[in-house]
């Protein structure tokens, strides 16, 4: 890494990638793929009304995959000097020579044409540092102090670079900025809790004080919750809740899982047709899998949602509709599965979204006779990949809706429900927001109304 911890420029990255490819070229019969990433960023945690952790972090990773015919292995290092580069190539080569031949090994990808990623770097985000974080968090803490609630949260930002190069001539370099902030407010008696979060590549879209205000208002509004029985409820999900559940669906558009029978998109016996003929399951490509109001798409230019012009293998990404007005239009394939199955190569997309609609929160609430407004979910776990049954809990603000109006806070629930059921019964969509799921992978998801959402037990947690 450069002195001072800057991310790698295209020139610097290309020099290191070429060094690795030159090392690999000295090995008889070797082909090579190189992935080089760098990041420099900072983060601050705060809790119980004060700053608790401040980190300035630099990291680089050089990963080299070497193939000798069908024998392939990968190695990585964060030491980018000549010795480090030579060592990582040698390690990958040694492992590759020892590896049994694999049918999944393909020759490295050659030159590709990619969409330009202009605008992924936000100048304000790139300038952000410890002092900027501290100033923003100071405002947030002051709001909580004035409101008499306890604030906790996290604010992080980074500049990142990703470069791919192969011995077959592929070269691509991407730079971007990435930020996320979230705030949780708790009433002093521990009886109310609220949360708000945002993620983007642009600093202007993250306002810690505004997030703190939302969290504080939620905490105050959620205090002293009434007790409500478990059961099936109509729900309005805020984007963070929608994203947490729908990510199980957007991450299951994988063609291989469908073929192997372990997906909700596998063609099944009974109602959904028979098993495939080639020792596996057919996919439901071209079939209606969800209502007409539901569209799942990806956009490599949606940088706020981590969209990128290429995937990890270097496969070019274009704007793609996966579920088109309820019909399964495409399933994702990596290079190996596309070659094996004969299906079109799509690569694995980032910048995924569930399309939203025009309804406001109040309009969605007005359409509910008795139901719940849900801020977010917590600790979701997949129970059954073939039905996408998921369990999890509500958190940081659940509010009862009666006759089209908010009545007041209720306690948390555990649910057992599927995003397929959620979307099958969806009858209203609002504005979308980028959500960093568990602080990591991003998904753009809307406010959403659905029905018969299965709350299976009460959670006493606040």
């Amino acid at each position: 890494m450069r002195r001072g911890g800057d991310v790698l420029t295209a020139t610097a990255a290309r020099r290191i990638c070429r060094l690795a490819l030159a090392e690999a070229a000295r090995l008889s019969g070797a082909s090579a793929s190189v992935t080089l990433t760098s990041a420099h960023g900072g983060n601050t945690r705060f809790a119980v009304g004060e700053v608790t952790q401040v980190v300035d972090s630099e990291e680089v990773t050089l990963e080299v995959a070497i193939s000798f015919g069908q024998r392939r292995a990968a190695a990585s290092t964060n030491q980018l000097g000549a010795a480090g580069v030579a060592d990582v190539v040698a390690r990958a080569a040694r492992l590759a020579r020892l590896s049994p031949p694999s049918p999944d090994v393909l020759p490295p990808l050659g030159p590709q044409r990619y969409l330009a990623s202009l605008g992924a770097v936000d100048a304000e985000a790139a300038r952000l540092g410890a002092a900027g974080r501290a100033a923003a968090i100071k405002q947030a803490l002051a709001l909580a102090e004035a409101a008499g609630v306890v604030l906790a949260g996290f604010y992080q930002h980074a500049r990142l670079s990703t470069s791919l190069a192969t011995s077959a001539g592929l070269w691509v370099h991407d730079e971007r900025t990435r930020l996320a902030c979230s705030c949780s407010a708790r009433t002093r008696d521990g009886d109310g809790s609220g949360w708000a979060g945002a993620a983007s590549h642009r600093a202007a879209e993250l306002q810690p004080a505004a997030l703190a205000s939302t969290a504080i208002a939620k905490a105050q509004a959620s205090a002293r919750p009434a007790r409500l029985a478990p059961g099936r409820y109509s729900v309005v999900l805020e984007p963070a809740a929608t994203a947490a559940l729908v990510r199980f669906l957007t991450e299951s558009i994988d063609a291989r899982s469908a073929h192997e029978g372990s997906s909700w998109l596998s063609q099944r016996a009974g109602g959904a047709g028979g098993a495939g003929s080639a020792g596996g399951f057919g996919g439901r490509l071209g079939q209606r899998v969800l209502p007409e109001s539901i569209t799942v798409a990806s956009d490599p230019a949606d940088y706020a949602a981590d969209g990128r012009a290429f995937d990890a293998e270097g496969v070019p990404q274009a704007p793609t509709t996966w579920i088109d007005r309820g019909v399964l239009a495409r399933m994702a394939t990596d290079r190996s599965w596309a070659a094996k199955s004969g299906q079109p190569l799509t690569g694995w997309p980032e910048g995924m979204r569930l399309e939203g609609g025009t309804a406001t929160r109040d309009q969605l609430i007005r359409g509910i006779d008795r139901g719940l407004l849900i801020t977010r979910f917590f600790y979701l776990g997949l129970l059954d990949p073939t039905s996408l049954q998921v369990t999890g809990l509500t958190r940081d603000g659940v509010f009862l809706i009666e006759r089209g109006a908010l009545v007041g806070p209720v306690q948390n629930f555990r649910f057992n429900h599927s995003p397929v059921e959620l979307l099958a019964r969806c009858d209203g969509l609002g504005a979308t927001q980028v959500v960093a799921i568990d602080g990591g992978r991003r998904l753009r998801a809307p406010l959403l109304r659905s029905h018969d959402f299965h709350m299976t037990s009460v959670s006493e947690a606040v």
Partner: protein
Amino acid sequence: MLLVMSAFSRRALVKGGLCSAALISLRAAPAAARELLTEPAKDAVVKRALSAAKAAGASYADVRLVRRRSERVDVRDDAVVAVSSDEEYGVGVRVIADGAWGFAGSPQVTVDNAARVARRAVEVARAHASLRRRPVALAPEPAHVDVWQTPLTKDPFKISLEDKAELLLAMSAAARRGPGSCMFQGHYEGLSEWKLLASSEGSYLEQHLVRVDPGAEVTVLDERLGVVASRKHDLPPRQAGWEYVEGAPLLADARQLVEEAREKLRAPVVTAGPRDLVLDPSNLWLTIHESIGHSTELDRALGFEANFAGTSFATPAQLGTLRIAAPHLTFYADKTTPGGLATAGYDDDGVPGGRWDLVRDGVLVGFQTTREQAAWIGERASRGTSYADSYRSFPFQRMPNVSLAPGARALSLEDLIAATDDGLLVIGDGSWSIDHQRRNFQFGGQLFWEIRHGKKVRMVRDAAYQASTVAFWNACDLIGGPASWRLGGALRDGKGEPAQMNPVSHGTPPVRVRGVAVLATAGAR
């Protein structure tokens, strides 16, 4: 929160030698210790970082050089589908300046860069110092100079890749031999964590920890009905060498995994309702992890994790009074458990590993602390649970091995089944979820058998049990004896922001718990 996990095996009780081996701490004289592993060049780097931090105004500093290596082999059916070797090395400096924490890390391990990183840590601390309510204060700890390493007989990084691939491919062949199609996925992962910790108070500690994780899962399908069933091996990851992998009954169990998966394929979905549960250690370790392990983290209990993983039902004000479990249950934290994934000579604050009770005779008696946290509950010394997962990660409170002590009576799993009139036996870990105060949880499993009149009568599938922590542990009425105690665990337990991964083990005997809600999880297909 538990992000990535792997499991445990009642079949794979490690051979006596490893299990009984006391952890060897090479408590040599300071000079000898320094010479054992450390090179002068590294010594120069850490000294420069400490002096630069002090010169920049830090009242406390520690510097860690951390080298992490991992090796992984993945097998699918008859092919090795991925082989990788990852290495990461860097320097991290943590300081207290103007009463605030600051941290910086870099992969460039040079004298000059270490000084830059140290100054940067002081700079970011100072930028936030006005946002502290009270200055950070550390519990006193003597300066330690020592070397510690995982006791092992076979360094897994010296075992050839061919041997590792061969073992997995042989297991795959054994699983897929015989009638009917079966998909096999196997993996081996070896992890090496070397670190040198030096502090401004004079501690100088070098540690080398080695962990291994062999694993396998089979999937069988009924093409006519269009249904699949999977069975994951219960073998847990362990802090150990290759001898642990060699001694595990992976090959011997391969066929049994397939037979169990086939039985599961044909099994009816469980009938929902309250049941008496008999929980095998291969399932219970994860329930202990989530309900007792996380709830007794002091930072969580006091609100420091409120934004991410949540808080806890257990608070310091309830020490000595909160009845978490039935009176015959004692849970203890232990940084010295042989083979435990969280076992270490010292934590990342430089505090020696120890053992203490968290829940004694059913009552909350302790928390997990670091040097920063001990005084928060009036304790004079840290329990030694600080950990950072990388050179670039801030060390904070992480879970030690947390275990349930065996009962006094020599009861086995079979004895618990025999004593149960109408129940459900749960083997292996499946899905897991718990609320943000560690109250309402729901756990799945690998295999479920109905118990009638003291006997396993038939397998059922797609079950989960749901309960509230305190009610659940108070409803535990039978517990296995010392011979039934087994160690499970996970390599990657997530906590903190940005999330850091902590390896941790949990030992437990089988238990019986009365009247727990059982759900059918399959949903509408």
